[in-house]
């Protein structure tokens, strides 16, 4: 099974994602440059964190026009699993693969800290090995993670169970105090209608080994390995 890790100029978590797939999980992994036009046979695509194209104009606004994007759109439309992490999530929003947009954090501060998120749904390729309401300790590192969508879109996301992760406290309660950025409904991650494209602001790839402070993020990568093994 092969992970394709997309690299934009300004990506800075690409090696973390590659390391998680290749060294921690022992899967095949390959970087895909943003100017490539094919995904090199990847079975799962990761859009990593960072500051693609300096985040100029808006986060992800320039990256969505990268030459690799048509291949990613086609892969996603065909049902291929795509995970957007932090900046990668922002790129998926700008590209229209996921609904909504990111605003500046409500306190205007860049938040770099460990947070707790609750797994809301386990029927996606990236959460199927997690248990419902499982709490994950994951790092966040963003200035623009304040998820926003029109009330109608939020209602639709909730009704179709497409909120996949929510910021919560240590006990698993969704509280305003546990919300690092002001996201509507404490939303930390969502999926598309077909549930194969998932985006989240926290960094599971930076939390795959206990010496790094948490190995809770590993379940996302293990999940997609399981999901793909089932379809193979």
């Amino acid at each position, binding site marked *: 099974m092969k992970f394709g890790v997309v690299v934009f100029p300004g990506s800075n978590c690409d090696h973390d994602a590659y390391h998680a797939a290749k060294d921690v999980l022992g899967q095949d992994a390959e970087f895909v440059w943003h100017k490539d036009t094919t995904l090199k046979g990847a079975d799962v695509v990761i859009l990593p964190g960072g500051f693609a194209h300096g985040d100029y104009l808006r986060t992800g*606004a320039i990256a969505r026009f990268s030459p690799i994007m048509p291949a990613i759109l086609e892969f996603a439309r065909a049902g291929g699993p795509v995970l957007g992490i932090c900046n990668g999530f922002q790129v998926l929003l*700008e590209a229209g693969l996921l609904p909504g*947009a990111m605003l500046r954090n409500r306190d205007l501060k860049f938040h770099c800290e460990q947070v707790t998120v609750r797994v809301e749904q386990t029927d996606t390729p990236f959460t199927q090995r997690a248990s419902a309401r499982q709490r994950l300790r994951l790092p966040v590192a963003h200035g623009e993670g304040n998820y*926003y969508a*029109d009330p109608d879109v939020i209602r639709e996301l909730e009704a179709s169970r497409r909120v996949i992760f929510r910021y919560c406290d240590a006990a698993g309660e969704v509280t305003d105090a546990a919300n690092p950025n*002001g996201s509507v409904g404490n939303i930390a991650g969502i999926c598309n209608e077909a549930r194969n494209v998932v985006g989240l602001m926290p960094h599971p790839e930076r939390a795959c080994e206990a010496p790094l402070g948490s190995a809770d993020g590993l379940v996302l990568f293990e999940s997609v390995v399981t999901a793909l093994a089932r379809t193979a």
Partner: protein
Amino acid sequence: MKAKVFVTLKKSVFDPQGKTISDALHSLGYKGIGDVRQGKYFELELDAASAEQARALAAEVADKVLANPVIESYRIEID
């Protein structure tokens, strides 16, 4: 021909930067200032035959690139 494009967050979207600026102005003693909305300003040098054509081109790039319609709206002036 020049197009000026003003991009701001939609009225329904909270603007944390605008709020902070407004709070700062109030703390400086300015009483007569209410809400502040901040945004982005673009000047586009355009090769266009008419003001209408310039406006259409500016609107096209504003829709496609300069503004995100989920959270932002824009206004165009042609010089």
